[in-house]
């Protein structure tokens, strides 16, 4: 299992979902095995079942870790909408200044070309 430090929480939960899909596939495989005409092959069924149990254990472990680590915080405490607006205003100022500088540059080039 991936150590927690390497993947983000979302990736870990996605891994859990992939394991669930794999678990379902194993269950289907076991059922098919049991339903086969010549009777179930023991080693295959055993392998499937052991993998199933292992995956269930992994899933449970991962979910427990995730639930424990869901931090308690007041949501949207550090909302940055006001600085974001300040940022937008600064962006507009920059646009304006760049336009002015471009005009100045054009003026200079005009003089240079005329000279």
């Amino acid at each position, binding site marked *: 299992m991936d150590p927690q430090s390497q993947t983000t929480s979302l990736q870990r939960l996605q891994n859990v979902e992939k394991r*669930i899909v794999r678990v379902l596939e194993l269950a289907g*495989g076991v*059922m098919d095995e049991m339903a086969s005409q010549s009777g179930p092959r023991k080693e295959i069924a055993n392998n499937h079942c052991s993998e199933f149990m292992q995956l269930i254990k992994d899933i449970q472990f991962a979910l427990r870790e995730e639930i424990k680590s869901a931090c308690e915080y007041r949501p949207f405490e550090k909302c940055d909408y006001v600085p974001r607006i300040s940022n937008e205003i600064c962006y507009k100022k920059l646009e304006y200044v760049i336009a002015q500088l471009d005009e100045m540059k054009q003026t200079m080039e005009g003089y240079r070309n005329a000279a």
Partner: protein
Amino acid sequence: MSLKPAASPARPGPIINRFQPKQTQPKSQFPKKKPNFFVQNHRLFPDRPPNISVQRRQPLEVPIHIPPEILIRTMDGNLKISIDKLPIKRLDAIEENGSERFPSDVDYDENRLNLIRRIDFGWAVEREDPSKKQKSEGTTTSKDSKTTNQKPGQWQSLVENLQLARQELSVIIDLINTVEANDAVTVAGMTRPKQLPNEILSDLAVSTATKLQCFRHLGKYFKQSATALEQQVAREARFYGALIRLQHNWKVKRHRFGASASGNKGFYIDLFYNTLNDTSASLRPSSMSTIPIEHDTAGMLAVNLPPNSCRSLRFEFLGSHFANNMRRAGETNTRALSEDSTETMKEHANDDECVRETHSLLREVHRAIFDEQVFELISCEACNSSLSVNLTGIQENYLSLSINQGASVSISLLPSSQDNKTDCGAGTNSSETETLPSELLDGSKFGEGKDNVKKLGFPNRISFEIYLQQLFNEYVFVKVKNKTTSSVRSQISGQQSKDNLNILDHFCMSLAHRIFSNKVLSELEYLVCRTPYVQLISHHTWHSRTSSWTLSMKVPQSILHAGSQIQSSGANNVKNVNSQFWTKVVVIDESISVQGEGNPNVVGLFNGKPEITSPINRYECDLADLPIILLQQVASQVIQWLHEEALSLGIKVNRDFLSLAFELDHGEIASLVAHVDPEDTIGCISWWLMIDDGLTEDLKLHPGLSIGESESRKFLGHLSLNVLYSTLLDFVNLCSC
């Protein structure tokens, strides 16, 4: 031969176990489950022998559980009843050579009939006439009496059982009819008779086959679910991945109850942030504050907004010939709110673009909400009476104000149009603004008058639009957020002793100041460009209502070197001559104040001291007088410098306000007089040389009479500092004192 009874335990009585509708069961190798039908009526058949069980296999059939080796024979021999329980193919006969002969395939019904025919019910008929039978039996030999006595006994019980079975069947038929007629019937359960091993095995086989089928079905179902879940997981992984990326920047919330239709999970983005808690009007969340997050066709996150729903604040100068009212060509005021991109197939490489587009969209909406809030605040403030703001027009999403300097502006809330390519030559964007009331057009002051150099016009409207937004953001939102009052308020209210803070007032005063200072600047530039030895320096004051410039006059280096050479040769009165003179012009709101050094003190003039202290004077003036005052200041600084230079050269000079008087031989006084004229197109400061030999007193007393040149007055022209210095040196030779 004995009639072997069925090896079955005692029966409690006939009870209907299960009722099944009439159906013809097909011939099959293994009999299916056989329900047992027993009429529930203990009282009907109390004498029912317990050791005979009647099993209903087929309707209207009366199978009798009798071992097959009982055959029916004729009355005179062994009677055996053979009834095929299992419809296996039985040998008809086997010949000596080993070949087997099977009976021909007979129809089921025909077979049944054959079997029934094989039963001879003659004895039953005889039994009903017991007298006849006894009579007939009495004639039989004693040899057969034993067997026949046993036979009739067995036969009689068989017949009785058959009759009972028949009665049961009639009850069952009545039951069928009753149920078919929809009468209520209560049925009690009953226990099944114990099954034969082969029946048990067949039951087991059937159930095993069914279970196998179930397993197969379940296996298929699991596999299908696995693939469907995998697809679903992949779809949702894209969605949630994008949602988490958006969550880094925006507040993502979820409707707990009543999720919206079309399978959405109820996510939405909340763009509202109410910071106003005190006196200002609390802003209502606009309709755009909550943006629902939807799925597009590929299951990816999508945000759909109605087009042109975002409005932006627009600040304009009113007047038809203001070229700066147009939008810049490259102004990215809008973002295309088209949703074409959501229709394309999304791949992983496009997920980034999708998220970025959504992010840009949200930025746009966020800014639009802010603009709306600002407009509301402006409206509230404009409606309160204030000094510098006059509200001249109000409409929905439109305000027009008139500012002090004769300017009229409009603040409006316009939908962000997608058309940025307005012509550069066009005036106002008449398609967007409302019709202007004609009395607001006040551009006449700027259309006429001075030449291009002097006309700076109005400041750029975009800069003031941004400034307006910044003011409101800083003083409304950020202030409440940071809860700082003192440092912020002091800047605005520093120039007016008002306590209540009106942002719009401040803005309008800043605008008026800017317009006024542009006029001042144009005047200064005009002056300076015609006075070559004066430089204009602008200073940043970090205050929106204060501007300041400096006119500095610097003595050229060549003169300084020459002066130092002469001084070193003279070796007396080594004095540090001022080589730089400055005049400062400060404009605060709309009042100009000029301060500069070099103006002689009036008191010092009277005292006639050679060392004249040059304090820094400051005085106010207005725009019309500014040029004259500045020129006088500069000229007096030149005179001051010349005076100091002359003193350092050892010349006896006297200094007046704008003239420098040299004492020549023979008592003549030659004066170098500065003449300032702001309207002079060649230069503003011109010099005259006046010679006064004491004879033309009257001329001096009446300076206004002599305008032009004469013998005592000579126009020198617009001299540079070098020329003035060399003139000074000439006077050295002339004075020679």
